[in-house]
């Protein structure tokens, strides 16, 4: 008999009753150090007082009005995102998938508005993940997630991640945009080289394409900068962000330049819940913390510490681990053993991690972790690896 909750997830028999900073407390009393963060969502950890206060206060005022009316908190958040990014304008939605879907629509509308409606195809990269809607599944092109959902949404081509020759050869008169994650998360924590990101900009300009970065997972400070592409010193035309933006409150955003968004006029796109007062209050509170002086610098510092520790861990356990990879606090351990066995063992010992493609264990801790948490996580992984190697 089917469960009341549609059985689309393979769930662990584990539930949490509360969280505090980087820790989660299970209903059976066990404490876990959370290096999964709800899959890179809880950027400020659990029960962050500033966020709790912002949400509670907003909940007492107004939850939802629809976008038929002005939403002051939405305008404020949009202005802050614009002020701190390449973008001139922002559309708010409820998830990363919706943010990517909006990005694709913005790109298609741009070309339609430019008198080149035949340019509708988007080139994506093998190994990417952009969400679970029909269009974003097609954009990623991963057969594992597409299987059984035919027909596949038309209009997407795929090239190897990081290969410029292949990208150039794939461009046709129908190509509208290039869609790339600066750090592939689900695909196995694969950071694009900074040169690759720069060359993507050059190729997009050469062929008149729009460049879309999917920073749903790697953005919002996770790389040590507000957005990961900033490390490369280039800007996209459109960007999707979500996850850390709401720290667990469902919110996504599609950011664009004025030029790219020229077709997005009244009625061209919408979202019932997108940008509602509750989500905006939380996201503004997240930005209060992330944009505070010194916050991103501390993220970068602790990330480098964790990176060094993970590299040493790999050397200590060559039978279990193949390599450490990633950028900032979106890190991965490529395994010789099956990655799920390490995820399970670490969880058993009190550390939450999450699997990713290419047999990688993903480490996406809250950005608020300190050296002590790094030490605790690495010590737990040490024990887990030792037990698996035994």
């Amino acid at each position: 008999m089917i469960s009341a909750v549609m059985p689309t997830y393979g769930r662990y028999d584990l539930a949490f009753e509360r969280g505090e900073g980087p820790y989660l407390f299970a209903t059976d009393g066990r404490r876990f150090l959370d290096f999964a963060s709800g899959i890179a969502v809880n950027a400020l950890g659990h029960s962050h007082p500033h966020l709790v206060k912002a949400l509670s206060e907003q909940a007492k005022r107004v939850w939802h009005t629809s976008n038929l009316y002005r939403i002051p908190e939405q305008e404020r958040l949009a202005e802050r995102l614009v002020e701190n990014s390449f973008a001139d304008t922002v559309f708010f939605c409820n998830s990363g998938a919706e943010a990517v879907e909006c990005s694709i629509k913005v790109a298609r509308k741009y070309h339609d508005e430019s008198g080149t409606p035949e340019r509708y195809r988007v080139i994506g990269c093998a190994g990417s993940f952009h969400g679970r809607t029909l269009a974003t599944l097609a954009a990623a092109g991963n057969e594992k997630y597409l299987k059984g959902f035919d027909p596949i949404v038309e209009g997407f081509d795929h090239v190897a991640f990081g290969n410029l020759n292949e990208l150039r050869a794939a461009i046709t008169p129908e190509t509208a945009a290039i869609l790339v994650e600066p750090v592939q998360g689900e695909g196995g924590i694969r950071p694009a080289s900074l040169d690759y990101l720069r060359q993507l900009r050059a190729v997009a300009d050469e062929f008149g394409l729009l460049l879309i970065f999917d920073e749903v997972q790697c953005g919002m400070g996770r790389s040590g900068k507000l957005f990961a592409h900033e490390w490369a010193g280039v800007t996209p035309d459109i960007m999707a962000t979500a996850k850390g933006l709401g720290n667990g409150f469902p919110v996504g955003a599609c950011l664009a330049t004025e030029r790219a968004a020229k077709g997005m006029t009244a009625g061209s796109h919408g979202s019932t819940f997108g940008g509602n007062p509750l989500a905006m209050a939380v996201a503004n509170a997240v930005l209060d913390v992330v944009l505070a002086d010194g916050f991103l610098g501390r993220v970068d510092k602790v990330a480098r510490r964790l990176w060094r520790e993970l590299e040493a861990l790999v050397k200590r356990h060559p039978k279990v681990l193949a390599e450490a990879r990633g950028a900032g606090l979106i890190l991965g351990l490529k395994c010789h053993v099956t990655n799920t066995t390490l995820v399970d063992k670490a969880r058993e010992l009190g550390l939450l991690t999450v699997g990713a493609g290419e047999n990688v264990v993903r480490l996406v801790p809250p950005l608020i972790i300190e050296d002590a948490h790094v030490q605790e996580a690495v010590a737990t992984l040490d024990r887990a690896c030792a037990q698996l190697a035994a």
Partner: protein
Amino acid sequence: MSVPSAASPKHFIDLDGFDTATLRHILKDGVSYKKGDIDPAKQQPLSGKTLAMIFEKPSTRTRVSFDVAMRKLGGETVVLSSNELQTGRGETLADTARVLSRYVDAIMMRTYQPWKLHEMAAYATIPVINGLTDSSHPCQLMADVMTYEEHRGAIAGRVVAWSGDGNNVASSWVHAAVRFNFELKLACPEMLMPPEALLRWARDQGGRVSVTHDPAAAVKGADCVVTDTWVSMDRDATKGETRHNLLAPYRVDDRLMGLAKPDAVFMHCLPAHRGEEVTASVLDGPQSLVWDEAENRLHVQKAILAWCLA
């Protein structure tokens, strides 16, 4: 895209589209033209025929060798640049192909994006020859195989090492490796690899094509070492410092050549930039076949033209 159903002319697009016997037949004729066994001066097989040559990219060898080859075979050429054609003002390639098919007997096209060549071939009712695209350079490879065999005998079973950009010429080397049954070891930077789909095609065909990021590993024990310029033509978004940094470890110098077999040859489709992708000592050294390689473009192109227009 709908494609006309008229009987297909004999295009020369990419080596993967041919069987080995046809390519061998063309090569054999190329050798005969060079040796004088087939004397164009007497036979003039393309007398009365006209070849339109469309250039979107600059060209030395392709332009001159096709022009001279056509004339040697008794034909004539019309040289067109995209600036001079109405395509520059929005006429479709399909319409251009239809019209040119009424004026001339074959089209040689040198363009950036492969779709343009395929579009031309889809709508032309006369042969279309690939004079180079961003994806491939099959005429060059025919000359390269001819040149290798001229100096070292059958290429089948030999090991060819490519060190550098996994570009259009490298892609045609992949096609050639499968069709002419030699082993190809490519050494390319990760950002400049040949397309994954092409490598998959080679594997599916049973081709012995491998890729590494280590030039020494690719070149070790090779019979032939090949490279190409780092910055191709006048248009390339990836040119500049990045490209030089990526490709510097792939430069073919005496040390790298020393890892190949003692009688290994060096090939390069030219233009070459001494001190960049290859040192002067290699390019101008005793193992270099580059000038014969350039000359053989002429002879093999006579054979390609004759085959297309036969």
